[in-house]
Every structure is written in C-alpha cells, then in structure tokens.
C-alpha cells in the first residue's frame, strides 16, 4: 500500500489554495505539518514491512478493475522515503516561522508538497519513463521554490538552474528513447535483460554516458555542478535545506543508481567512471569551499564535496562501499539540512550571509550555535556522530578493494572538510561579539525545534549506528546484490 506517499501530498497540494483563502496562516501550517508527520510515520512503518517481508510490489485497483499502476517498494526506496519525510518534516516545521515575511504561505506549502509527491513517486516507480516524469515534477516545483522570493538573485539562480536542468532532461530522454529502441520495453527489469542479451555495446555505452551526464547534472557532480552554488545560496533557507539535503540525492543519485546499476550492472567502465567523478568532486568541492565568505555558498560547495564521497562509495561496487555510500547519503541529508536551516536562522537574525560581518553569536543564539556545531562535526566525520561511521565505511571499502591512493586522498579531503567547517564555526559563532549584533535574539520557536530535531537525529544515529545499519541501510544495499557479486568476482575476493 504505497499509494499514500504520492496521493496524500498531491491531494493536499491541490486543495491548498482553497485552504489559503479560508485561513492565511494557521490552517496551511497545521495541515501541511500533519501531512508530513503522517508521511514520516508511514515511511517508518513501510521500512519495517520491507525489512520483514522483502520488496513490496503494489498494483492499484479501481472498483474491481486493475489499473496499470505498479509501485515497487524495496530497501533502497524505503531508505529514500524515510530521508525525504524526515527532512521534509523539519523543513515544514521551520517554515512556520521563516516564511512569514515572504507571504503567500499556502502557495509555498503547495509547491513544497508537490515536490515531495514528485520525489516519492520517483522512488516508487518501476518504469524508467515514469521515473523521468516524476523527476520533472520535483524539478518544476523546485524552480518555483528557488525563485519564490522574487528578488533578482533568486530569479537569476533559478533561470540558470532551469536551463541547465532542461539540457540534462534532453540527454536523459534521448537515452531513454535509444534504450527503448534497443530493448522494446520501459520496465527496468526487462530493460536489464534486454541490454545483457543484445550486442549493441558501444551504443549501450553511449546511453550510459548520456544518463551519467543527465543525472549527474541533477546530482551536481563535477563538471556539471555550476548551477548548485548559486541556486542553493540564493534560495530561501528551508528550500536550500530541501534541495541540498534531499532533491540532489533523490533526482540525482537515486535515479542514477537505479537506472545505471539496474540496467547496465557493474560492467567494467561504470565503476571506474563513477570513482573518477567522485574523487574529482570531493577535491574541487572542498578546495572551493575554503575560499568562500558567504556561509550558504560554503555549505553548497561542501554539498558537492560530500556527494563526491557518495559517488565514490558507489563506484567501488563492493558491498561495503555501497553500504557506506547509502549511509553517508542518509547522514549528509540530515546534517546538511540542519546546517542550512541554521544559516537561515542566522540570516534572519543578522540580515547578512557574510561570515566576515558575523562574530561571537554563540552568546546570543545558543541553540543555533550548538546544533550548528553538531551538524558540522557530523559532516566532517568526527566520532561518535553519524558522519564518522559512514565515512569510515567508505574508506574501508576503498582500502579493501586496494585503491590505497584514493583512500588517502579521501581521508585528506576529510581533514579539509573539518578545517572549513571549523572556520564557519569560529567566524560566525565564537570569538568576540561584533557590536552591531547586540540586539539580536535566538531564533523563533519552530525554527529552533526543527533544528533540535535534526541534531538529535545526528547524535542518536551516531550512537545507535549498528541498529540503523542493519534495519535500514543493509536492505537498501542488498537491492544491488546481483551487481555486487559480479564485482566481487572481478576483484577476486
């Protein structure tokens, strides 16, 4: 029964304008947050079901007649649904206070719900074209959300994102058309059989390249990352959290993994290409983050770097690597969402995003400072927070597969990550209190509540990581078991 994941946000979004007419603030807030809470609880429930019963394939019925809607919920989908719902709930709670001065809250919530519905539909679909359509749903909603403030910077960032994203769309669709031509089917499993049976290997390689270019742009892998710093720094803070934490992972990494691993398996080139792109992303993201003065741009470049870690783990192809990559996906979503929400609280309190002008704010905004420290340490990989375990898994996987050089580079980049995060903490929160900020106060209630929620999640997942891995991450990694056994054979374990 996976249809509520798509149906609930979509139906609520379509009646949101009416609700907005009745009550400008209270009812949209209440209904949206209730919907997100429901989605979170339902995704936990669905995850438990998947753990116990294996993958769930659900076909829709309408008054006794079978509709042709097939929703597939396996381990990977369950993990993504949990991530989407958790970050979505935090963002919705945060928006209760933050979106006050943007007006048109009902419109904002409607777009947010449509984006969630699109992402949920993406992870639940079995058909590559439907996957593309839901990707487009989430993308169109995100264009509107980035430009929501109607200021010049936001419009410019959103237009650049729209143009680049549409080119990526064109590549993805061309590849889908050619794959359809090669195999005659659009269902992922049938395509996999078809490709392994056909002999059109160069053309299959061309299709794979097109998919990597298209989905790679959505995931902001270097060299397709040019849109991300502008879009994530100009967007309203809850949207930055949503984009950086969830959208690039769902429409980029999930789609890339699902399509490429299922269709093409782990044949030779794919793993190498992903590892190369991953290590380049890690380095370029980390180096460019060091030179930034704007806190949100620094966080955006850090996202590029961490996505590089995830792609690196996926590229290795061993069970440990994929396990580490998916765990890091989950952890980064929580921690990065937390950091972006905090940067929004800073921006709202001080009116600026530049680190030079901030200073010593920890005294005035203790909750923001504390949760920010937790989030930074989590991403940088400091024990016992969650990021440490996922990065460790990826490094172990690299060492196990004998890529010692890459492991060394990844470890050094981890130190770089810690360095620039400490810069943010020192410049923004600690040190002498800048005189201009004597009058500011802590962030409003709901904003603090949502960041405390995410920070608690970071700590708990870090402490309870064996349970988390066994219950959630391992089923996700196991969906690629067939491809993995191929890689293990190649590496000679």
């Amino acid at each position, binding site marked *: 029964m996976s249809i509520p994941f798509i149906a609930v946000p*979509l139906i609520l979004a*379509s009646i949101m304008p009416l609700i907005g007419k009745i009550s400008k603030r209270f009812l949209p807030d209440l209904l949206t947050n209730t919907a997100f809470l429901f989605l979170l609880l339902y995704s936990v429930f669905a995850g438990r079901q998947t753990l116990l019963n294996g993958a769930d394939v659900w076909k829709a019925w309408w008054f006794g007649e079978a509709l042709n809607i097939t929703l597939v919920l396996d381990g990977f989908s369950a993990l993504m649904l949990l991530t989407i719902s958790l970050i979505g709930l935090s963002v919705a709670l945060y928006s209760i206070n933050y979106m006050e001065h943007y007006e*048109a809250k009902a419109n904002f919530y409607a777009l947010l719900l449509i984006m969630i519905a699109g992402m949920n*539909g993406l992870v639940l679909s079995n058909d590559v074209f439907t996957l593309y359509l839901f990707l487009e*749903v989430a993308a169109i*909603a995100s264009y509107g959300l980035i430009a929501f403030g*109607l200021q010049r910077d936001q419009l410019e960032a959103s237009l650049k994102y729209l143009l680049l994203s549409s080119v990526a769309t064109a590549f993805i669709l061309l590849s889908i058309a050619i794959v359809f031509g090669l195999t*005659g089917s659009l269902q992922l499993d049938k395509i996999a059989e*078809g490709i392994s049976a056909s002999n*059109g290997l160069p053309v299959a390689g061309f299709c794979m390249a097109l998919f990597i270019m298209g989905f790679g742009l959505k995931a902001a892998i270097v060299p397709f990352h040019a849109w991300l710093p502008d879009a994530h720094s100009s967007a309203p803070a809850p949207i930055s959290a949503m984009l950086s934490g969830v959208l690039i992972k769902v429409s980029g990494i999930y789609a890339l993994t699902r399509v490429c691993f299922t269709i093409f398996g782990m044949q030779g080139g794919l793993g190498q290409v992903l590892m190369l792109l991953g290590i380049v992303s890690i380095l370029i993201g980390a180096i460019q983050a060091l030179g930034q003065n704007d806190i949100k741009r620094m966080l955006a470049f850090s996202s590029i770097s961490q996505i590089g870690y995830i792609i690196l783990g996926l590229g290795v192809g061993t069970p440990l690597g994929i396990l580490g990559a998916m765990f890091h996906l989950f952890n980064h979503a929580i921690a990065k969402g937390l950091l972006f929400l905090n940067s929004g609280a800073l921006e709202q309190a001080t009116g600026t995003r530049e680190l030079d002008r901030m200073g010593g704010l920890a005294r005035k905004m203790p909750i923001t400072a504390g949760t920010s420290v937790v989030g930074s340490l989590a991403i940088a990989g400091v024990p016992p927070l969650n990021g440490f375990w996922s990065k460790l898994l990826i490094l172990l996987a690299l060492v196990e597969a004998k890529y010692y050089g890459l492991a060394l580079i990844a470890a050094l980049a981890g130190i770089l990550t810690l360095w620039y995060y400490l810069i943010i903490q020192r410049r923004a929160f600690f040190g002498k209190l800048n005189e201009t900020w004597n009058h500011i106060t802590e962030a409003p209630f709901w904003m603090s509540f949502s960041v405390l929620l995410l920070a608690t999640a970071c700590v708990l997942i870090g402490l309870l990581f064996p349970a988390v891995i066994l219950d959630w991450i391992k089923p996700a990694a196991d969906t690629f078991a067939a491809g993995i056994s191929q890689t293990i054979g190649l590496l000679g374990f």
Partner: protein
Amino acid sequence: MHIFLLLGLVLCSILAVFFSDLLKAAISLAGASVFLALVLFEMGATYAGVFEISVVAGLITVLFIATISLTEKKEDAKHNKRMRLLFPLVFIGFILIDVLVMSQYLVKLSSLAGPAETGVFGQVFWGGRTFDLVAQIAIILAGVFCVLALFRKRSGDE
C-alpha cells in the same frame, strides 16, 4: 517525401535561432512545429501530431508572443557576428563526424522485438500508461502553482 519534411524542419529551426527580430523567430519556431507534426503524421503518430500542432505550434507560440510583447524594447541585444559566422562550420563539421560515427556503429545494431501492441490508442494510453497520467496531473499542478507564485501581488513592492 519524408526527407524533405525533415530538411524543412531543420531549416526552420536554423531560421528560428538566427532571426534577430524575436517575433520572426517565434513564427519560424511555429513553422518548425508544423513540419514536425507533418513528419509525425507520416509515421502514423496521428495523436502526437495533433497535440504537437495544437499545443506547441499554438499554445507555446502564443506564450512566446505574449512574453515578447511584455518585454520588448526598442534597442535590443546586439548579436554576435562572430558566432553567426562560426555556425556553418560547426554545422558541417558535426554532419561529417556524425555520419562517420553512425555509419560505423548503428547499421549493425541488433534490437529485440518488443511485445506486439494491441488495442487502440485510448486503451494503451489510459490502460497502459496510467501512472504517467498521475504524473501529468502533478506536472500541471506544479506549473500552475509556479506561475501563481511568480506572479503574485506583493504588498509593498520594492
């Protein structure tokens, strides 16, 4: 016959890119849509052809003309002479490379025969691709809400 329609499509596209006057460019784009629709008709895709004419050559051209009228100014963007002269070279170069690559790889391509298609278009669309329709509803909703958000009245414009 088919090849002439395709050539007409490419010609109209090139015109649409290189006309300086935006209105003429939009009209050439509509012309390209008509050629594409004729190509689709000839391949038997009648429903797609009808959609192409009514939506792309109709609705989207109207949207273009509306946007152009709302934003036109007397002195417009200067066009880059160098890029225009460079285009024929790029074009011919692409054709040569593409013909070489494709004649090598594609002629020997084998493909699986898909399942035979039964039924009429309505059955295939509503019955076979039902999930796509849910996605289409979501896309239309997303587009509507985006446009509403971008055109809303702000109290106290800056």
